[in-house]
């Protein structure tokens, strides 16, 4: 069994706090297929509870990081595609939960610091030797003699009680979150419907970023990523470029059918068809072969839809954009832009019925998850 450390979900509270008004998360799925059927995947979620990420708060090792591990067999990763992961992740990892976790940890830290200060204060007075001028001898001065008993009695027990309460609260919050994550993972990976799949596609990387914040996965060279973005921007028309800069998605018109497609930032499950009212309709998942960077993938999808739409429709697989974590699924095309797109697609001849007829349908004897086809 090969353990593949493939899932890393790092919640960056610094980024979240800076854009917390959005209150949304975006899920990116990256996939590769060279994972054997009997492999296992170790999956973990890190809760980074520091408000800054590796800067002012010091090196990563000193920051408080809570990790939940969950190991699952590859054969039970079917729910990955189903998009239920995203729903479940949103439920389990809401921003308020993480903020509560952070607050609980912060309170514990503050009280521990206070308690440590108090202890140090006592220790110093206990162990500092003083010279008694009357007796001419050295004696140890105890806390009882130097600190007023009343204030100490008031301070220490209340502090300890507060610390105990804060620790208990933190354990409750953290434990609750961990239980939910374990339950979540159990629900994701419980059903084993991979039987019958000779060449299962395995999507083993999941990175969760807040909207508007998308750090690059480490497996991509940053320079390559930049080149990809540059090539994409270079080949977008001005309207598409403006859309992309504003919303991180853009629209294009199918070269054969005239269908309006929305290409969102991402490499998989990022193409959404729109109806004539500008609303998201269905998802069409296709991408170029090879592990291309995001910009190249999006450009390939745009070019394929504009110049080679039949092939895109032939190989593409449908998905429900609402389940795929695409916040862009809720966005409606502005009226002016919609009219522009409709005009651009007006001279295309293929009807929606013909389009759906060209889509590959699951075989009748398919016993597994047909949405994986």
């Amino acid at each position, binding site marked *: 069994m090969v353990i593949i450390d493939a899932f890393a979900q790092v919640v960056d509270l610094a980024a979240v706090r800076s854009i917390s008004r959005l209150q949304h998360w975006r899920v990116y799925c990256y*996939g590769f297929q060279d994972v054997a059927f009997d492999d296992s995947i170790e999956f973990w979620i890190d809760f980074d509870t520091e408000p800054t990420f590796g800067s002012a708060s010091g090196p990563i090792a000193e920051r408080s990081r809570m990790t939940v591990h969950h190991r699952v067999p590859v054969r039970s990763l079917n729910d990955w595609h189903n998009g239920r992961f995203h729903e479940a992740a949103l439920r389990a990892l809401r921003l308020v939960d993480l903020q509560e976790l952070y607050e609980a940890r912060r309170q514990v830290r503050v009280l521990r610091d206070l308690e440590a200060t108090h202890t140090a204060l006592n220790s110093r007075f206990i162990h500092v030797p003083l010279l008694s001028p009357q007796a001419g001898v050295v004696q140890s001065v105890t806390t009882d003699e130097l600190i007023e008993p009343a204030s100490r009695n008031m301070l220490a027990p209340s502090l300890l009680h507060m610390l105990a309460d804060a620790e208990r609260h933190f354990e409750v919050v953290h434990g609750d979150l961990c239980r939910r994550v374990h339950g979540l993972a159990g629900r994701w990976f419980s059903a084993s419907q991979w039987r019958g799949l000779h060449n299962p596609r395995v999507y083993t990387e999941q990175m969760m970023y807040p909207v508007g914040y998308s750090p690059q996965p480490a*497996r*991509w*060279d940053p*320079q*390559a*990523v*930049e*080149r*990809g973005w540059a*090539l994409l921007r*270079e*080949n977008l*028309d001005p309207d598409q470029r403006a859309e992309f800069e504003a919303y991180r998605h853009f629209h294009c018109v199918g070269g054969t059918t005239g269908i309006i497609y929305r290409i969102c930032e991402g490499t*998989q*499950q990022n193409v959404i068809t729109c109806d004539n009212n500008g609303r998201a309709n269905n998802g069409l*998942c*296709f*991408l*170029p*072969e*090879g*592990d*291309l*960077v995001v*910009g*190249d993938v999006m*450009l*390939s999808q745009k*070019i*394929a839809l*504009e*110049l*080679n739409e039949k*092939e*895109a429709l032939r*190989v*593409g*697989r449908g998905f429900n954009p609402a389940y795929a974590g695409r916040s862009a699924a809720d966005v409606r095309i502005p009226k002016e832009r919609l009219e522009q797109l409709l005009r651009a697609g007006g001279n295309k001849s293929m009807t929606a019925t013909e389009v759906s007829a060209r889509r590959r349908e699951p075989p009748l004897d398919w016993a597994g998850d047909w949405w994986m*086809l």
Partner: protein
Amino acid sequence: MLTFKIMTRQHGDQCQNFEANEAGLKAAEDRFRELTGSGFFAWAPASEAGPARQIRKFDAAETNVVFQPQLKGG
């Protein structure tokens, strides 16, 4: 000068330049056939001459060609 931009795995697009002489054009044509034969989709970016267009056959007049891998279902 002919420029081929080839989208490659994890490295972004890689540029390949060919001189506009006989040897360069021959090398470019061979490379074009090699890439399209292995499934790459060749297209010319939009320019003053017109919008982006697919290139099915090697054309020395197309000085800027982008190659993207063939599509697969996600």
